[in-house]
């Protein structure tokens, strides 16, 4: 009789135990809502660093997508670990990756190379897919670069929105071209000017005082006054005019 009473003392563990254990052992990621450049976003992390950033607005949808993509659970947390919080705030304020740790596990070496290169593009600038391909020593892999960027698990912090089509058009974005435009504009990019150049087939601009040609959004190109700016449709045209490529934005071989 007393055995039965004791048996009945067995109870269900609170639903918070397993998530907390899995978080603490790094077998699940934590996530929270965090302000981003165009409103709130979800940020997930684990002991290796930031594992994903999502502009999704619904928490359940975010969790479901995460678990399909990463095949491990993700749980809401109160706050980021202090060091990660500091690094993330800095990365978002400066719009540069800086020392923010990213969980690169589960990415191919190629995708890592693409994303690390993408992280070098400064805020206010854009580069074509072909530029990334060339810079990582794989000039023919333009399409693969597009795929790697489309699967960027950490948008915003690794600024895949700064990579545009080779013809200068904004191109695709996981959350749609309009969101890409909004994110670029939020960091001070004049998308209309960019669009205008693309529409006129202008891929490079140079300065007639230095005889250097640049990607149009290169910070050096933007310093050139309108009066001294010359426009080129391609590299050959620029070279024939006696211009050399900029050493900062390395525009050569932009097809």
């Amino acid at each position, binding site marked *: 009789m007393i055995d039965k009473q004791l048996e009945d003392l067995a109870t269900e563990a609170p639903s918070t*135990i397993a998530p907390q254990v899995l978080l603490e052992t790094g077998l699940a990621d934590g996530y929270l809502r965090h302000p981003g450049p165009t409103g709130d976003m979800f940020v997930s992390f684990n002991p290796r660093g930031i594992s994903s950033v999502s502009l999704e607005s619904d928490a359940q949808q975010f969790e479901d997508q995460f678990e399909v993509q990463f095949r491990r659970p993700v749980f809401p947390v109160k706050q980021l670990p202090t060091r990660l919080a500091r690094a993330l705030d800095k990365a978002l304020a400066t719009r540069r990756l800086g020392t923010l740790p990213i969980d690169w596990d589960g990415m191919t070496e190629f995708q890592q190379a693409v994303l690390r290169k993408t992280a070098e593009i400064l805020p206010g600038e854009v580069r074509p897919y072909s530029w990334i391909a060339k810079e990582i020593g794989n000039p023919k892999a333009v399409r693969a670069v597009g795929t790697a960027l489309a699967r960027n698990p950490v948008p915003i912090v690794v600024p895949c929105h700064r990579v545009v089509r080779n013809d200068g058009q904004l191109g695709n974005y996981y959350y749609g071209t309009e969101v890409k435009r909004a994110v670029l504009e939020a960091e001070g990019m004049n998308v209309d000017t960019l669009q205008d150049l693309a529409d006129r087939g202008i891929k490079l601009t140079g300065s007639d005082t230095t005889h250097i040609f640049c990607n149009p959004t290169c910070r050096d190109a933007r310093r050139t006054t309108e009066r001294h700016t010359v426009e080129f449709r391609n590299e050959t045209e620029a070279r024939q005019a006696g211009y050399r490529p900029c050493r900062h934005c390395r525009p050569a071989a932009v097809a």
Partner: protein
Amino acid sequence: MTLDTVGRVNSRIARDLDAAFPDLVRDMQNGIYSGVLRMVPSPADAEDITQETFIRAYRALSEYSRERIHDLNLPGWIWTIALNLCRNAARTRSRRPRTVELDRDAFSGGKGPEAMAMESDENRRWRQLLYQLPAAQRSAVVLRHVVGLSYREIAEATGRPEGTVKADVHRGITRLQEALT
């Protein structure tokens, strides 16, 4: 758990700890929590100790060799950790700090924090009854009848011979019966 399934859990853990561990937590958490709840002062302590037990188990298992994991009496071994923490809990009452703090408000399913904070009279009575037992009898009774461990597993967990454990359970039950009448 039968001996056979225990053996298979051991192999799974030895093969891929990270893949097997979440299932181990899911399978064992109710037992650990139910038992710990009867040996510490509050449900909050029980939750904390149950978590800490699994976290320590994970860290230890990730250091162990395959052979060592194969030879483990898992329920007994895990309860060794839990019992140690229960003993310490009597001394230090503070919550262990976590590197990441779960957003508990988001967990309404199962037994939420509100339900936990409100302890029933029934629970309080049992806590008092069990608290009157000597520590060895209390843990033996709880592990045998609340958690459902075998005498062999309890012997492993408590580091006492099986015969002594049987005697502890028997004496504990007798005392409880006396207290109840």
